[in-house]
């Protein structure tokens, strides 16, 4: 029934106008821009779109972006899990502080993060100068891009896991260790299955951000076409070259990745909200 959730005394016009406003705003701020991206990308026809996407530099940008994500995601998967494990399973001085520190990448503007890395690891920086003596260059090359991306995306996995692991408690793990299981066996058989979906959710978000990060990367990459240009940087570069169709073609790739992420995210959320099991009843009497 349409009116099932109507409270007594709520005016129908209030309801209608609120819903209408929300829909209108979503339309103009979310839906239309996404549609425009694809419309612009395809405005000069499919073949131009295909030419733009298969352009040498675009292909390189796609490759670099995926490469960065492929390194960032596993690193932050391990880091986030270890962090969540340590703050939820152990009590040590500074634990609360550590939980707060996890949020620094969310609180700091990515551009500033990029600048900090530049100052620290750049040729004239503290560590960068020392590393340069050994012919190691981190900034303005792919390692720098990976480093800032790791920084920007490191809270996602930990933030998904911490509340869940806090809520689940450590009783099951204690039961495991009392039964004689090794640490690795406990992690694989007890902890991992319990946090699986939250972990996947964290990975999806990490990946989305790693692919789309612009600010921090633009500071440390040096924007060398065909070398240190990621897809988001490439979009901007093309746009500044007045290649609007090219820019939108690349942007549409990013948008497509984002939409795929949303689909995966919705699926994972649905899985997470389901009770653990519902195997068919098997009564053997």
């Amino acid at each position, binding site marked *: 029934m349409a009116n099932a959730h109507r409270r007594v005394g709520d005016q129908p016009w209030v309801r209608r106008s609120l819903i209408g406003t929300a829909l209108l705003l979503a339309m103009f701020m979310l839906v239309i821009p996404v549609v425009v991206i694809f419309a612009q990308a395809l405005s000069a026809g499919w073949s131009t779109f295909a030419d733009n996407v298969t352009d040498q530099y675009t292909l390189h940008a796609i490759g670099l972006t995926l490469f960065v994500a492929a390194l960032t995601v596993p690193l932050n998967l391990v880091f986030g899990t270890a962090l969540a494990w340590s703050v939820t399973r152990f009590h040590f001085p500074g634990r609360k502080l550590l939980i707060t520190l996890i949020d620094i990448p969310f609180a700091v503007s990515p551009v500033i993060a990029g600048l900090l890395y530049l100052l620290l690891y750049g040729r004239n920086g503290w560590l960068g100068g020392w590393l340069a003596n050994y012919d190691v260059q981190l900034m303005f090359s792919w390692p720098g891009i990976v480093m800032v991306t790791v920084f920007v995306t490191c809270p996602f996995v930990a933030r998904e896991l911490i509340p869940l692991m806090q809520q689940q408690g450590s*009783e*099951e793990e*204690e*039961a*495991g*260790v*009392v*039964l*004689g*299981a*090794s640490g690795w*066996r406990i992690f694989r*058989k*007890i902890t991992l*299955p*319990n946090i699986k979906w939250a972990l996947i959710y964290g990975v999806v978000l990490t990946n989305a951000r790693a692919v789309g990060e612009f600010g921090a990367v633009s500071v440390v990459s040096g924007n060398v076409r065909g070398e240190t240009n990621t897809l988001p940087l490439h979009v901007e570069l093309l746009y500044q070259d007045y290649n609007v169709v090219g820019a939108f073609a690349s942007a549409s790739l990013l948008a497509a990745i984002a939409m795929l992420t949303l689909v995966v995210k919705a699926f994972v959320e649905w899985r997470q909200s389901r*009770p*653990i*099991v519902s*195997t068919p009843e*098997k*009564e*053997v*009497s």
Partner: protein
Amino acid sequence: MSITIDRISKTFGRFQALRDVALEIPEGKLTALLGPSGSGKTTLLRIIAGLESSDSGRILFGGEDVSSLHVRNRNIGFVFQHYALFRHLTVAENIAFGLESLPRRQRPSKPEIRQRVAKLLEMIQLPQLADRYPAQLSGGQKQRVALARALATQPRILLLDEPFGALDAKVRKDLRRWLRALHDEFHFTSIFVTHDQEEALELSDQVVVMSQGQVEQVNTPTELYAKPESRFVFDFLGHVNVLSGVVRGQKLVQGDAWVSLPGNRSEQEAQLYLRPHEVHLARAPDAHARLPLRIDAVSLIGSEVRIELVPEGWQSNEIWEVGMSHNEFARQNPSRGELWYGVPDIGHLFSGDNGQPKTVDWHCRDVAKACNI
């Protein structure tokens, strides 16, 4: 395997959870750790298991120091208060977990494990639920599975943390009986933590009463109930009626109430503790006691009629309770609002700071002078 707890202390921050606890748990017996919350009983259990480390002291299993032995290698069974079943594993997989965790050389073969699990499922009377997940079980079923899981590796020590705390009254009673039967059959050394005195007294061979991180008293249930050694134990085990007053001459007096105390005593404050079955009611005061009480409530449920009374002309922190057989009740027919007099048969007198009570028996006073006071 006997367990020796040798001067264990533990603090959490500034809170002293256990101070210098020394205890002997006899082999093959079912021992209860009884105490209010915060008394340190669960901490002690976790230290015995190795899930918590102590600040000082030693734990010995059968005379062997296990203080620095990892939990994993202590080979104990532990049943958690909230079951702690592995939610992603089926009942059978849960029970098999301990066997599958054994080092390769000791691990039974797959068919052997399957057989052992089937046997344990028989034992807990749930063979039809082997393929269910914990979320599909009732509380009582979960607790049984937790027990089977703990017993799968045949530990010689079984530790249970408030094993029946989260169950409803009926299931709790059934499980208690079942656990007792199981224990009598296999004779492992068991310790269980509880805050329920009835559970402790009914189920165990030995009760350890704890309070504020210390052991108050250790004894068999019968002895413990009959001879509590401190006010705390008295208060904690069942209801107790208290007359708190001053000893004058041969009487303990407070307001309109008094009780005669044979023998000469110096004038001092004292409390007389009386169990509900150690007092009876009369229409008129007795020669050795005058305890005016007004009936506040009568409860007929149970094997005895329980009468709640309020002091009249004197004071008590808690209401008084007196038990009466249904026969007696039918004969005397006491009803609400009436004034009656309490007549003590046996009492326990605490005086001054002296921890131990003295037993006063008014019955044998008339019969013989041999009554020890």
